[in-house]
C-alpha cells in the first residue's frame, strides 16, 4: 500500500508499473449521467488520457485511482473492495492512488452527499468485470480453448478442465490488444467473496504509525510556511496594518495583504510567511491590523433568532410543497399544536485544521491539500487567477476530517495567491482559532410547526423554516424555496398527509454558511421528528405505531419492525425513557431508539442507543457501523453541547477550551443493525446523524414530560 498523490504526467513513474499495462477507465461524455468504459487503445479516440481508474501491469500489480477524498468515511477501503470483487484479485494486491482533480476522467469527484459508493459502484463493478473478461479471453486465446471453460480467481485465469493457469501479469499484453466487451455479466449478491464482508481498512496501518500523509504533513522542496490574520467579521477588509513587531520575529520573511474568495464575495487578511509554522504563527500574533467592516451588519446570536421567530409569525414564505388545505384546516381546528423549534449554527471542527500547499510557477499551479472537491478547486482557481484549467493541478492528501468544510475553495485559493506573491511554494496553516471562527458554518434554523390530528392520524401539517440557504452563497436564486426545505423528512409522509404545507422563508445574514455533515437533514430532522412525536401524543398513539400508520411503504415497515425488535420497544413501560425518530438522508433511511434515565447527580443520562440503518447495497458492514457510531457521537455533540455563537458579527468561541467536544467519557453504548436488502446503495457517511437528536429529546419527554425545542441543551440541566 502506498499513500501518495500524483500528477498525471508522472503517474507511470510513481506507480512503479512495469512493461505493458492493461488500463481501463471511464469516459464521461459531456454531462452524461452514465459513463462509458474506455480501453487504453480507444482512449485517444475520445480525446481522453488512458491512465484512469484501473491498471494491471506485467507483474500483475493492480493500481486503482480513488477518485474521492478519504476523510475517514472509508473510500480508500470501499473503492478497492468493489474493484477486487469483480476483477477477482486479492485485496492486498491493489495499490491505491488518490486521483487528481479531473472531472473529464473521474466524473464527479466532490466527496459530499455520502455519494462515494452510491454514485460510482455500478460503474466500478462493470469496469472491473470488463477487465476480468478481457483477461479470461486473452488466456483462452493463448490456450486455444473455449472461454467458457476458463474462470478467474485470485489474480489468475484458470482453465478448469486441465487446471492450467496464467497469472494476470502474463496476460495484460494480450488483453490490452483486445476490444473491451460491450456487455458483461455481474455477480449476484450471493456470489460475492469480498463485498458485504467486514474486511479491514487498507488505510489503518498508515494511521497507526504516523505514515499517512495528511494535508498538514505535505512538504515539498523550498516550501515556506504561512499564517494569515483574517478579518474576524467574516466578510470584512483590511484597512491598514502595522507589521513592525512581526518583522522582528526570527524566520519571518514576508508580510502582505491577501484576499481570498468566499463564494461570490471576498475576505481579506494579512499573510505572514516564515521559515517555520511557529514563526508564522508568532508573526501573525504580533500584527496590528485595522479592519474595514463597513457595508454589512454586525449581528448577535440573539438578534438572528429573534428575527427568525418574527419571520415565522409574520410571513408565509415560499411553498416547497403544498397540497390540500392545511392552512384552512389549522385555522378552523378546535385544537391545534403550534410550536417552534430552534437549531444552532455549527462548526465542522475537523481535527485537522484547514491548510493547503500551493506552488505557483510561471505556467502552472500545483496544489496539495485535504480537499473534498478537487474539481471545484481547479475550476474556481483557474477562473480567479486566470490560469488555464489544465495547468491547475489539484492533489488530494488524506483528510483529517472534512464534514463538508473541506469541499470549499477559499483555503486553496488563498494558498495559491500567497505562493504567487512570494514566488515560492508555501503551506498555509490555519490555527485552530482561525478554523473555529472563520466559518462557513452550518446555518442555525428556526421552524414553526403547526398540526391538527383527528381519528388518531394527522389531518393537517404545516412546517415553515426560517434560516440561511447555502445556495444563496453560491449565487442561487432567491425567489425559489431552499431545495433542502424538507430534506430528512421521509417522502412517504407526503402521500399520507393529505393537507400539507412545507414552506421556506428566505432569511439572510452576512454569516457565511455551508454544508455540515448530513446538511439540512441535521436541523430539519429535529423539527419534523420532534413534532411527529408531539402529534402522536396528541393522537394518543404509540410513537412508532403512529409513524408506521402514516408510512405506506414496505421497506420502512421492515425498518420499524427491526427497531422494535432490537430495542425491546413493545416491552417498554410507559415513562421509562424511550424515544425514537426516523429520517432519510442521501438515499438511506435510519431509525434511532434512545433510552434515557435519571442521572444520580441530577439531569438525565443516556443508557443506550439503538440504530437501524437501511442503506441498501453496501460494501463493508464494519465501515457502515463505524460511520454510524461516528454520526451518533457528532449528533450528540450537536444536540447537547455545540453552538457557534456570534457577538458583534464575530464568532465567539475560538478553541476547544470553550467549544467543548464530546469525549470518551460522554459516549453511551451504541448498538447498530444494518438492514439486508437488494435495493440500490444509499449513503453511509452522513445518514446516521439526523435522527439522533430528536430520538434523544423524545426519550427525555417520555421520561420527564419536558419537551425540548431548542438545541443544544444540557443533559445535566434537564
Amino acid at each position, binding site marked *: 500500500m502506498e499513500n501518495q498523490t500524483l500528477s498525471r504526467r508522472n503517474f507511470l513513474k510513481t506507480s512503479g508499473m512495469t512493461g505493458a499495462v492493461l488500463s481501463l477507465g471511464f469516459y464521461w461524455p459531456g454531462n452524461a449521467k452514465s459513463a462509458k468504459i474506455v480501453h487504453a487503445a480507444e482512449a485517444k479516440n475520445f480525446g481522453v488520457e488512458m491512465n484512469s481508474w484501473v491498471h494491471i501491469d506485467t507483474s500483475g500489480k493492480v493500481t486503482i485511482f480513488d477518485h474521492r477524498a478519504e476523510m475517514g468515511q472509508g473510500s480508500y477501503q470501499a473503492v478497492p473492495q468493489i474493484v477486487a470483487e469483480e476483477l477477482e484479485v486479492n485485496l492486498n494486491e491493489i495499490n491505491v492512488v488518490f486521483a487528481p482533480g479531473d472531472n473529464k476522467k473521474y466524473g464527479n469527484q466532490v466527496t459530499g452527499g455520502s455519494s462515494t459508493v452510491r454514485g460510482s459502484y455500478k460503474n466500478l463493478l462493470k469496469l472491473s468485470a470488463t477487465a476480468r473478461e478481457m483477461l479470461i479471453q486473452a488466456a483462452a486465446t493463448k490456450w486455444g480453448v473455449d472461454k467458457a471453460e476458463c474462470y478467474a480467481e485470485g489474480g489468475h485465469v484458470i482453465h478448469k478442465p486441465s487446471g492450467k493457469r496464467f497469472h494476470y501479469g502474463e496476460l495484460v499484453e494480450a488483453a490490452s490488444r483486445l476490444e473491451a466487451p460491450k456487455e458483461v455479466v455481474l455477480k449476484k449478491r450471493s456470489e460475492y467473496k469480498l463485498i458485504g464482508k467486514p474486511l479491514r481498512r487498507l488505510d489503518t496501518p498508515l494511521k497507526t504509525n504516523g505514515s499517512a500523509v495528511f494535508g498538514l504533513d505535505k512538504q515539498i522542496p523550498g516550501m515556506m510556511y504561512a499564517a494569515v490574520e483574517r478579518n474576524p467579521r467574516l466578510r470584512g477588509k483590511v484597512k491598514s496594518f502595522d507589521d513592525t513587531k512581526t518583522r522582528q520575529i*526570527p524566520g519571518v520573511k514576508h508580510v502582505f495583504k491577501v484576499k481570498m474568495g468566499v463564494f461570490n464575495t471576498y475576505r481579506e487578511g494579512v499573510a505572514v510567511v516564515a521559515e517555520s509554522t511557529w514563526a508564522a504563527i508568532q508573526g501573525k500574533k504580533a500584527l496590528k491590523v485595522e479592519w474595514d467592516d463597513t457595508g454589512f451588519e454586525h449581528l448577535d446570536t440573539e438578534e438572528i433568532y429573534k428575527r427568525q421567530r418574527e419571520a415565522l409569525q409574520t410571513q408565509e414564505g415560499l411553498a416547497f410543497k403544498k397540497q390540500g388545505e392545511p392552512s384552512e384546516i389549522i385555522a378552523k381546528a378546535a385544537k391545534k399544536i403550534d410550536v417552534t423549534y430552534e437549531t444552532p449554527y455549527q462548526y465542522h471542527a475537523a481535527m485537522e485544521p484547514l491548510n493547503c500547499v500551493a506552488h505557483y510557477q510561471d505556467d502552472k499551479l500545483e496544489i496539495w491539500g485535504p480537499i473534498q472537491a478537487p474539481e471545484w478547486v481547479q475550476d474556481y482557481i483557474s477562473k480567479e487567477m486566470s490560469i488555464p484549467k489544465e495547468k491547475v493541478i489539484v492533489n488530494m492528501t488524506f483528510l483529517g476530517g472534512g464534514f463538508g468544510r473541506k469541499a470549499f475553495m477559499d483555503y486553496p485559493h488563498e494558498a495559491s495567491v500567497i505562493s504567487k506573491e512570494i514566488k515560492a511554494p508555501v503551506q498555509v496553516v490555519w490555527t485552530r482559532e482561525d478554523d473555529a471562527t472563520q466559518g462557513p458554518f452550518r446555518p442555525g434554523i428556526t421552524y414553526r410547526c403547526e398540526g391538527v390530528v383527528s381519528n388518531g392520524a394527522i389531518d393537517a401539517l404545516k412546517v415553515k423554516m426560517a434560516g440561511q440557504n447555502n445556495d444563496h452563497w453560491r449565487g442561487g436564486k432567491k425567489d425559489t424555496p431552499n431545495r433542502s426545505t424538507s430534506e430528512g423528512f421521509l417522502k412517504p409522509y407526503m402521500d399520507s398527509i393529505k393537507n400539507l404545507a412545507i414552506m421556506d422563508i428566505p432569511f439572510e445574514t452576512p454569516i457565511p454558511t455551508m454544508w455540515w455533515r448530513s446538511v439540512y437533514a441535521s436541523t430539519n430532522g429535529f423539527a419534523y421528528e420532534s413534532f411527529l412525536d408531539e402529534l402522536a401524543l396528541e393522537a394518543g398513539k404509540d410513537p412508532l405505531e403512529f409513524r408506521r400508520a402514516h408510512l405506506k411503504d414496505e421497506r420502512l415497515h421492515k425498518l420499524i419492525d427491526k427497531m422494535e425488535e432490537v430495542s425491546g420497544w413493545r416491552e417498554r413501560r410507559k415513562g421509562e425513557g424511550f424515544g425514537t425518530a426516523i429520517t432519510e438522508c442521501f438515499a438511506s433511511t435510519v431509525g434511532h431508539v434512545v433510552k434515557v434515565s435519571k442521572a444520580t447527580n441530577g439531569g438525565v443520562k443516556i443508557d443506550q442507543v439503538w440504530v437501524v440503518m437501511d442503506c441498501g447495497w453496501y460494501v463493508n458492514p464494519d465501515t457502515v457501523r463505524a460511520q454510524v*457510531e461516528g454520526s451518533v457521537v457528532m449528533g450528540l455533540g450537536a444536540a447537547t453541547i455545540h453552538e457557534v455563537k456570534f457577538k458583534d458579527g464575530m464568532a465567539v468561541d475560538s478553541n*476547544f477550551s470553550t467549544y467543548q467536544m464530546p*469525549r*470518551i467519557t460522554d459516549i453511551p453504548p451504541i448498538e447498530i443493525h444494518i438492514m439486508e436488502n437488494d435495493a440500490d446503495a444509499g449513503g453511509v457517511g452522513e445518514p446516521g446523524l439526523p435522527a439522533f437528536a430528536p430520538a434523544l429529546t423524545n426519550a427525555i419527554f417520555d421520561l420527564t414530560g419536558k419537551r425540548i425545542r431548542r438545541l443544544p441543551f444540557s443533559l445535566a440541566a434537564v
Partner: protein
Amino acid sequence: MAKITLNINKKDYPLEADPQMPLLWAIRDLAGLKGTKYGCGVAQCGACVVHLDGEAVRSCVTKVSRAVGKKVVTIEGLSETNSHPVQKAWQEIDVPQCGYCHSGQIMSAAVLLREKPDPTDQDIDDAMAGNICRCGTYLRIRKAIHLAAEMQKKTSQG
C-alpha cells in the same frame, strides 16, 4: 535562535530553533517527522501527544528547550514495525476513521498500558479524556485498549 540537539526515536537531531518554539513544531518542521499532529495548540485535544522520557506530554505547549537532554518518542518511534500492542489492537479493531487524532490517542494509550497493564473502563476514561476524536471512534478506542492489554499480557507471559 539557538543550536540544540533533540534525541527523537533514539536518533540525535542537531537543530537551530527558537528555544520558545513548542516541541510540536520542532518535531514537525525542523526534524521533519510529521506523524505528530497539530490540533489546537492549547493542550485541549491531545493530537500532539509524544513521550518525553516516557511520560505523555502535549508537545504543542511544551517548549523545545524542555526536551533537550531527554528522550523524545513520537508515533514513528513507538515500535519499529507498527507492532506495539496498542498499534496492533488499533489495526485489529479498525479504530481510525480519518486517523488524524490517532497518533496522539495511541501515544496516550501506550503510557496507560505501561502504568496499568489491566485497565478498567474508568482507568481508560481517566487516561484518554484528554484526547478528542471528531470522527467519534471512542467506543472502538476503549475496546482496542482492552484488547491491547490482553495482547501485552500474552507477550509478557509468552
